[in-house]
C-alpha cells in the first residue's frame, strides 16, 4: 500500500470510524479476499468512467467462490467514448438496463465489507472507485489492497536476478498455465486474477 494511500485511510478512519460505515474500517480477521476488476472507458482516472464492476471472493486462499460473485452493470455514462469499445466490447446499448453509480457502490460495499481487495494493477480500480466514493460517502475504500503483479513478481524475481520480469496479464496467465476466462469483462478478469492468486500462493511455482 502506498504511503499516500495509507495516510489517507488513516485520516478517513479517524473521521468515519464511528459512523454508519464503521465496519468497513475494522481490521479484517476472516479468511476471504475479494478479487475485483472494473471495465472503464479509458485508463486515465481523471476522465474515465466505470462501465462494469466484477468481483469474486476467494476463500481460504484456495477456493474461488463463483457462486458468490458480483457482476454490476452501470448506466451508460454521459461521455461514453467510442475509442475504448474495441477493448471492453461494451456498447452504450449494452448498459441500457444498468444501475446508477450510487446503487452500485452500495452493492459493492455490502459485498466486499472490510475484506482485502485483490486486483491486477488494483490501484487503478481503487482510484476509479474512490473517485465516485468520495462525493457520496466522504471517504475512499479503506480496504487493504493486494497487487497481483507484485505477488507474481515477488515469487518470480528470485529466479531471474537482475532480469526483467514480464508482468503482462496474458504472460502471467500463460506462465501459470491457467485458462483466461473471458478477458476484458470485469467478472472474467476478476476470476482469472483470483485463479492466478490461488495458483501463486498455493501451487508449486518451481516449474515457472
Amino acid at each position, binding site marked *: 500500500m502506498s504511503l499516500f494511500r495509507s495516510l489517507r485511510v488513516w485520516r478517513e478512519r479517524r473521521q468515519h470510524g464511528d459512523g454508519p460505515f464503521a465496519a468497513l474500517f475494522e481490521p479484517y480477521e476472516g479468511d476471504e479476499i475479494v478479487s475485483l476488476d472494473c471495465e472503464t472507458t479509458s485508463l486515465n482516472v481523471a476522465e474515465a468512467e466505470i462501465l462494469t464492476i466484477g468481483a469474486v471472493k476467494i476463500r481460504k486462499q484456495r477456493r474461488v467462490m463463483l457462486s458468490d460473485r458480483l457482476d454490476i452493470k452501470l448506466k451508460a455514462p454521459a461521455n461514453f467514448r467510442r475509442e475504448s469499445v474495441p477493448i471492453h466490447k461494451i456498447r452504450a446499448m449494452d448498459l441500457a438496463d444498468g444501475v446508477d453509480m450510487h446503487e452500485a457502490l452500495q452493492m459493492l460495499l455490502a459485498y466486499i465489507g472490510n475484506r482485502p481487495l485483490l486486483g491486477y494493477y488494483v490501484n487503478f480500480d481503487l482510484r476509479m472507485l474512490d473517485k465516485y466514493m468520495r462525493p457520496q460517502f466522504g471517504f475512499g475504500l479503506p480496504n487493504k489492497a493486494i497487487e497481483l503483479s507484485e505477488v507474481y513478481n515477488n515469487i518470480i524475481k528470485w529466479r531471474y536476478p537482475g532480469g526483467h520480469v514480464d508482468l503482462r496479464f496474458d504472460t502471467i496467465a500463460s506462465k501459470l498455465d491457467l485458462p483466461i476466462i473471458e478477458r476484458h469483462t470485469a467478472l472474467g478478469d476478476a476470476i482469472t486474477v483470483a485463479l492466478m492468486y490461488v*495458483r501463486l500462493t498455493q501451487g508449486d511455482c518451481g516449474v515457472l
Partner: protein
Amino acid sequence: MTTAFNTSKPPFNLLSPAELGVLQNNLDIAYFQAGEVIIKAGEPPEGLHILLKGRVAEEDEQDVARPEELRHTYVHYTAEDYFGAWSSMRGRAIHNFVAVEETICHILPTRILLELVDSNPVFGDYFRNSFAGRFQLRSNGNVSQDMTEFMLARVGDSCMREPLILLEGTCIQDAFALMRERKVDCLLVRRGGRYGMVTGTDMLTALLQQGLSAATDVADIASYRLIQVGHDEYLFNALVLMTEHRIERVVVKDDQELKGILELTDVLSYFSNHSHVLGLRIDRAQTVEDLEEVATGLNDLVQGLNVHGVKVQFAMELIATMNEKVMAKLFNLLVPEDIQPHVCLIVMGSEGRREQILKTDQDNAVLMRNGLSWPEKQSVLEAFSRILARFGYPPCPGGVMVSNPEWVLSLEQWTQNLRHWSQQASGDNLLRLAIAVDAHAVAGNAALFKAARNWFFREMSSNQIFFSHFARAALNFSTPLTFFGGIKNKEHGLDIKKGGIFPIVHGIRTLALEHKVLETNTFKRIDQLIDSQQLPEKLGLDLVHALGLFIQLRLQQQLERMKSEGASDKDANMLVVERLDRLDRDLLREALHVVKEFKQFLTQRYRLEG
C-alpha cells in the same frame, strides 16, 4: 455468464436454459495441490467436481498410505471429466479422489446437483443409473436414426428409374423400338400438360386384342390416371401403395416435377438385398454359382448394417446366421449325400460364438464318425475352403480350417485332442482349446459334435485345477484404466481386445465350460449363467453392455479407418481414446471398470491370487 464451463457436453446439454442458469450460479472453482485428497472415502463429498485442469485419480481407501506403485487406481480423470456425482447422491464416497497433479475444478454443490437431478429426470438418469441404464441412454440416441436409415429408405435415393418420355404423335412401332433399345418395359407419353403411361402389355393388348395398327399414336392407348408418390416418400409406403392399387409402377414426383418411375420388381429386389430375404435365397440356391451370388450380396448387407449403425448384437446375430447358412449350404452342395450323416461341420472361435462383424475368418473343422471311409474327403474339403475364400471369407491365418487335415478328425481323435490340450493347457494348446470350446455344429450330423461336447463336459467336470488354470488367461492382460491420463501410448491407442474383450469372453467361456452351458455366444452364455445363479445378475448385465460397447467402439473406429485409408488395417483392435466423444469415453471407462470387477470376481471364484 463468464465461466470457462462447457455446457454443450453431456450431461449438461440435457439441462434447460433455466436449469443451466441455476447450475452456473452455483458453481465454485476449487484448487487442489498435487497429492491432496479431494474427496475422502467414507465422507460426504462437496458435490459434483468437473475438472478444468489437472488430473485426479480415484483410488482405494487404504491406498493413501501406500507407495505409488502399490496403489490400486481405478480411473484417472482429466479436463472436462467429472466425478463425485455418485458419491454425492449416495451421501458419501467409497473411494478416495486424489489430485495427481495440481488441479482446478468446478464444484457443483450436492444440494444443487440433487435439485437438478429432481427437476430434470433425463439429467438425473444420467447420474443415477447403473452402467446398463446409461448405456440405454446412449443407444436410444442412436436407434431411431439407425432404424429409419436401414429400414425406411426413401423413394428418391433408392431404386427409382429415369423414365422414357415420348411426345404425342409417336407411333406404337417406334415407341416399341425405343423401349427395346432402352431395355425398359414402360414409357410415359406427354399429351398436352399431362403424362400417360404405356407398358409393353398395353401395346400387346392394343395390337392383338383391339386390333389397332402399329402406326397408332401411343398417346391414344396410354392410361392417364397415374398413381404418384412424392420424391421423399418412404419406399415402404410406395410398396404399400402399389399393393393397394394392384399396380406395378408408380410415378415419382417432386412438387409438380416428374422425377422418375418406380417399379415393383425394383422395390422388391431392393428390399431383398437389404433384409433376411437373403436367407431364403441361400436356402434356394441350387448350385455353387447361385450361392456365390448371394454370398457376394451378403457383403453389401454387412456393409449396410455397419454403415447404418444397426445395434451391434443384432447385426452380429444376423450376419452369423447368414454366414452359417452359406457355409451349411456349400457343405451340403459339396459333400455327397451318403457321407453327410457321418460327418459334422463345426465353426469355432469368434464365428462359433457368433461375434464376428466385419470379415469372418474361416475357423472350422470337420468331425467324422470313427472308422468312416471317405477317400475324396481331402479334395472335397480343400474345395470347400477354397470356395469360401472366393465368397469373401478369408482363410484362417492359423490354419484352423477343414483344408488342413489336422482339423479333419474322427470323433476319437477329436476327444483325444481335447484331453491333451486340457492336460497341458498352455500356449498354443490353450488357444486351441479356447476356440474348440466355442465350437458349434453348422452342417452334417450335429449328433457327432454333441457327443464329443458332452464327453468333454463330463471329463472336465469338477476338475478345479484345470478351470483355475484355464481361467487365469483372462487375467493375462492388465485392464488399461490408468490410460486415461492420456500420457502413455497416445499414438498407439488402447488395445481393446486385450484390455476389454478377451478378459470378458474368456472368463465367461471358463464359467460356461464349468457349468456346462451349451450356448457358445458370450451374451447368451452370460444370460444362462445369470439364470443358473453362477454370475451375479448386476455384474452379468454390466458385462453384456460393456462387451457390446467394446465391440461397437472397435467397429466404429475400424470403419472410420477403412473410410479414410481405404483399406482394412492391421491394428484392428486399437482404440484411439482421444477420438471418442465424451459420452463414449465415459462409457468406455465405466465398461473397463466392469472388466476389472469381473476379473476380481474370477480371481476369487478360481482362487487366482498371487
